């Protein structure tokens, strides 16, 4: 009898420990998402170990060997118009893209969660906050970012600020929507009968219920953030040369489109693969985290 109970407990325990793994397994069942995860993982590895993966520095010029094609002279992906190693610039660019993406999404999330929680929980603040959010929504995103950079000046830090401000409204809406439904639940009333303050209820009891849509939002937002960073840099508003930023690299490469197409195509592929990977993983996460979604529909 006791062994049966023990076995059951053991099973329960192992099941519980693997809850995250269950989500992961659901995610990997989706073929596209699995490919996305592999791509994201390789980009992360490339970014973290960039200096060790490349035998040339990203700024190292070699004017005797410019615009070399891929594979020539030990340059895996060739060189650009100053003879800088494209592979090295690509992996160092991944670093920049991920740092900008992660930090702008993080800042955007913090702002959006704060506003969304307040708007959803306090009826009086709702109208005010959501009108401001609507106002932000009314601007085309890239235009808003350009406006902010025009005010603050061109630098990567300002790109991060611009993109995070642009992430706030979407996040605020998602959080507000979740809070509106969660605050009506009986367990929130039960928490109030225990004497919990509003702040405690919001942060410790309502916020954890919003995590699923937020994870999906953050993943999707990473794609947009990376794309926007490159777009801004391409337009000359973000990273300045000689910084190895993908958008800036395309901008430099487009002048040599005919003689050395790899200069524009390689960073372009980098952007495309990264954005694609984050989008499909976001899609997959949405399905894996939402038990109500039927995969067959």
């Amino acid at each position, binding site marked *: 009898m006791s062994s049966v109970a023990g076995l059951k407990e053991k099973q329960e325990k192992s099941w519980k420990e693997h809850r995250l793994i269950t989500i992961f397994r659901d995610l990997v069942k989706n073929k596209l998402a699995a490919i996305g995860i592999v791509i994201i993982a390789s980009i992360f590895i490339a970014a973290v170990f960039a200096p060790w993966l490349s035998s040339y520095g990203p700024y190292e010029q070699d004017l005797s060997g410019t615009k070399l094609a891929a594979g020539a002279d030990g340059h895996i992906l060739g060189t650009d118009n100053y003879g800088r190693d494209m592979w090295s610039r690509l992996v160092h660019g991944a670093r920049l893209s991920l740092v900008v993406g992660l930090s702008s999404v993080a800042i955007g999330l913090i702002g959006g969660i704060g506003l969304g929680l307040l708007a959803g929980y306090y009826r009086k603040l709702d109208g005010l906050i959501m009108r401001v959010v609507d106002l932000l929504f009314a601007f085309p995103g890239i235009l808003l970012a350009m406006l902010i950079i025009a005010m603050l000046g061109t630098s990567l830090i300002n790109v991060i600020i611009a993109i995070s401000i642009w992430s706030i409204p979407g996040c605020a809406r998602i959080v507000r929507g979740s809070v509106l439904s969660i605050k009506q639940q009986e367990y929130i009333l039960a928490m109030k*009968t*225990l*004497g*919990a303050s509003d702040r405690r209820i919001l942060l*410790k009891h309502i916020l954890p219920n919003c995590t699923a849509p937020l994870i999906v939002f953050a993943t999707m937002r990473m794609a947009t953030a990376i794309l926007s960073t490159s777009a801004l840099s391409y337009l000359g508003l973000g990273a300045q040369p000689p910084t190895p930023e993908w958008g800036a690299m395309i901008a430099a490469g487009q002048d040599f489109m005919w003689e050395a197409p790899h200069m524009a195509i390689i960073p372009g592929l980098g952007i495309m693969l990264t954005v694609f990977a984050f989008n499909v993983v976001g899609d997959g996460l949405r399905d894996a985290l939402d038990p109500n979604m039927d995969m067959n529909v």
Partner: protein
Amino acid sequence: MNPLLQVTDLETTFHTPNKDLTAVRNVSFSVDHGETLCIVGESGCGKSLTSLSIMGLLPAKGRITNGTILLGEEELTKQSEVQMEKIRGNKVSMIFQEPMTALNPVLTIGFQLRESLMIHRQMNKKAATVKSIELLNKVGIPSPRERLKQYPHELSGGMRQRVMIAIALACEPDLLIADEPTTALDVTIQAQILDLIDELQQEIGMGVIFVTHDMGVVAEIADRVMVMYGGEVVETADVDAIFEAPQHPYTKGLLHSVPDVDNPMQELKIIEGSMPGPDDKITGCRFHPRCPFAMEKCKQKEPPLFNLSPMHTSKCWLQEVTESESNTVIRG
């Protein structure tokens, strides 16, 4: 000595754009230490709103418009929100009908148990965990240490209700408000939960307000019974008097609608019609449209509360008739 809780002339109103709707009218009652008061009535009679009024947690737009709620020496209607937060969970606690929805699905049992200890007793996480295990033991949950790490969906309904009770009683409150805590459970679990509440009541010496519509539960647990109808108290008496000599026609109707196990052929009587809403205008007694004994007077004048004995009151004109009759008998 004052009773533990003394509610006097409580009136709760909802403000709507068109008019004010009064959902609880002139409700007065008291609960003493160690006593169980059952509030009985149909859905929509104001039982739950009465208990939420005591907690000071009325839904948006609801407000206490009249009356006093004295808990010991403290007047609850005059406390600020911050003061009420210190009282809730500490001196007054509440448990709910649906153990499925009254626990947060994304937080562990342990997290939710620790909350009130950390709020009111300023315990650190370690001390609160030790106390939580003790509490789970007390409410009869096996292997409590493992339970702390589990999520609500991993427990059965009865277990969850036990956890709810453990959470509510963590700070040993003076008063427990139980809003139909057994309605969602099957009868065997229901009996276990009632026993548990009774046991813990003896131990802590708290007063219990038990909201229910189940007369079987009332018979099991109540010391005194308060019957509500249409936002008003229609009859208050101790439990024996309610079952043996119910006075108000509504109480009688409620008792007639409970099946009798010993009489399988019995046809259940129903109370015709339905509960009036708070915006229905009814002159005189609010029960008269459904009352089999309604007289002309009932339609015109609202009956006062008649005292049959110090502990037994009934809000019905029939009492006046009996009173005057008995007077004539005495005179004759």
